[in-house]
């Protein structure tokens, strides 16, 4: 039975985890237990947030590429859809559909949003009272622009986010929900949007009877991952990272009472990192908030795989899980991950890294020279000629989809390497030593990109890899799925020799 997984990514952390998940799915990781479609839903009032927009762009590129591949079975094999596509049965790709809209947050302050100025000063003769509101919200809170989020204030988020379940987007979500579908929620506990959004969303999913299919949603398997502090900021201002830990403790206590003890979720994952963290560039929100990717966000994406894999074993009682690695180290290599995680990501990530690096470094040597890039070969049948010729690699579809997505992928890996703790399983490579890419694995034989070109030449005429006019990326995506796997296997590159 085909099942859908709705993933709510709340706030900046939610967006970044969705980005990590998208990268893993692009690499060929797949959800188990018949979850064939992932529906990412971003909830963030900070519409100009750099992290949010980067994630929306990546999700859109994923869809655009996947739509151009005939029956993908390796890279991009997992289907990603928007609620809009499901509800309207349309195939229009639009990055805005990944985000649920929040009304009245674009240009207003929090004070305007709650109608603070319409409240009365005279508490004795009035039903409402400005002064009581002032007890709950500071002047800064009231004057804060909502279009950059809640600046780490969940007390504001709790008010604003309470409205999104009334939105058309949320109704469409309910309409598309079917038996067997599941929900996963990603949030951070130490910020504003995520900390407030998670309990509110859960409350509505488990108890709001106004949502279409509310009975199904109420009984659905719901999982969540809550981020404890894992980074700090280099400046103390409206958002002060010194308060992250205290805020997290308070929120955990609240979550414990209202979510875990009441078994509102089937599985709840906690993840965080204390001590060895990087101080990120200060930004309260907006386009300046574009935090570098972090290993913990990829670990969060792995929690989603774990949730789907173990969904049949979940009970009505909330299972609380933590993420851990095998070795406490500042630089995480593949060998430092536990065996399950290694099995899940080493091969796909290495394959996709090889693919992306090949297109940057290896392709110029092969283009219009190697047989698999030539479409003008004489005296052979038409189908012996390659679809992946110079014209294809110069096409706008290649440049604005494949090339753009791969740039994000390389950037994502680079950012994780540059963070603390660093996730750095790959060496920097050039053409000659491309296959020395995995740290701690020497492999065997020639290390250049030549092996990829040889495999591509062998595979290029395979019927199941042929592109069609409406599925232009079929050959590229499928051929590299196979050739990278073949090369890694022949060169014994997926065997961990040593850690470090």
């Amino acid at each position, binding site marked *: 039975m085909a099942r859908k997984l709705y993933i709510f990514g709340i706030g900046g952390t939610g967006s970044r985890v969705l980005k990590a998940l998208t990268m893993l799915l692009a690499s060929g990781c797949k959800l188990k237990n018949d979850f064939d479609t992932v529906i990412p839903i971003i909830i963030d009032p900070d519409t100009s947030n750099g992290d949010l927009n980067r994630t929306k762009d990546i999700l859109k590129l994923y869809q655009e590429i996947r739509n151009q591949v005939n029956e993908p079975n390796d890279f991009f094999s997992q289907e990603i859809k928007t609620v809009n596509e499901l509800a309207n049965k349309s195939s229009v790709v639009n990055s805005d559909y990944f985000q649920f809209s929040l009304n009245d947050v674009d240009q207003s302050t929090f004070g305007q949003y709650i109608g603070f100025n319409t409240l009365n000063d005279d508490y004795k003769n009035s039903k409402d009272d400005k002064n009581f509101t002032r007890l709950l919200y500071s002047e800064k809170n009231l004057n804060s622009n909502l279009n950059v989020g809640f600046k780490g204030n969940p007390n504001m988020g709790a008010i604003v986010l309470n409205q999104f379940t009334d939105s058309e987007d949320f109704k469409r979500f309910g309409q598309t929900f079917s038996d067997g579908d599941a929900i996963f929620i990603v949030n951070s506990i130490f910020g504003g949007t995520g900390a407030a959004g998670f309990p509110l969303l859960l409350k509505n999913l488990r108890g709001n009877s106004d949502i279409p299919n509310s009975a199904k949603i109420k009984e659905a398997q719901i999982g969540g991952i809550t981020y404890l502090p894992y980074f700090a900021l280099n400046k103390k201002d409206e958002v002060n990272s010194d308060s992250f830990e205290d805020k997290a403790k308070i929120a955990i206590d609240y979550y414990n009472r209202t979510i875990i003890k009441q078994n509102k979720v089937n599985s709840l994952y906690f993840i965080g990192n204390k001590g060895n963290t990087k101080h990120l560039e200060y930004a309260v929100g907006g386009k300046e908030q574009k935090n570098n990717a972090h290993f913990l966000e990829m670990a969060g994406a792995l929690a989603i795989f774990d949730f789907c894999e173990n969904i049949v074993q979940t009970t009505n009682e909330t299972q609380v899980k933590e993420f851990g690695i095998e070795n406490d180290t500042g630089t995480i290599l593949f060998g430092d991950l536990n065996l399950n995680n290694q099995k899940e990501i080493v091969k796909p990530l290495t394959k996709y890294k090889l693919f992306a690096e090949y297109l940057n470094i290896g392709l110029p*040597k*092969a283009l219009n*020279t*190697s*047989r*698999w890039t*030539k479409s003008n*070969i*004489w*005296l*052979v049948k038409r189908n*012996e000629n390659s679809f992946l010729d110079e014209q294809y690699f110069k096409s706008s579809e290649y440049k604005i989809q494949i090339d753009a997505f791969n740039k994000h992928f390389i950037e994502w890996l680079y950012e994780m390497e540059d963070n603390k703790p660093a996730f750095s399983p790959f060496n920097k490579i050039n053409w000659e030593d491309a296959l020395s890419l995995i740290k701690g694995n020497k492999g065997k034989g020639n290390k250049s990109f*030549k092996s990829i*070109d*040889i495999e*591509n*030449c*062998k595979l290029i005429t395979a019927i199941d890899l042929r592109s069609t006019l409406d599925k232009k990326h079929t050959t590229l995506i499928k051929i590299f799925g196979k050739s990278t796997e073949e090369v890694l296997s022949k060169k014994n590159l997926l065997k961990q020799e040593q850690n470090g």
Partner: protein
Amino acid sequence: MNDIFAIIYETLFGLYESQFSLIFDTLYENGGYNLLGLTFILIPLIMFAAFYFLWKYPYGKFWHWLLWLIIVFLITGGISWGISNNEIFLSNNQALIDALADPESGYEEYANTLPIKYALFNGLLSIAAGFIYSLIMKQFSKIQIHLPF
């Protein structure tokens, strides 16, 4: 086969000289033409089979193919020179041995020019054979299908 090869060398390339028929008769009767013929057939066959099916170099260009053809020409020519030289100067035909030993017969002087001619003509034949093999073998090659063009 011997007859066909004899026609190719003696008639097509016009190498036959009735004045020195002993040489050509010896080549014909001792199977020398067979050896020369098989040389221009088999050497390019083996060499181009290696080029199209064993050489796993994915960046092959036209000049690689051309270079291969030149190598085939040189190997075939070299071997052909050796075969024809052996067949003529080391034959068991006593009449030919005597003729070569007699300076007034002009045999030795003429015979000395023949190996290089056989080498050259066989080299050219190997180029023609190599080209034909290329057009056939490229169809089945996974990596060099695009060569020579």
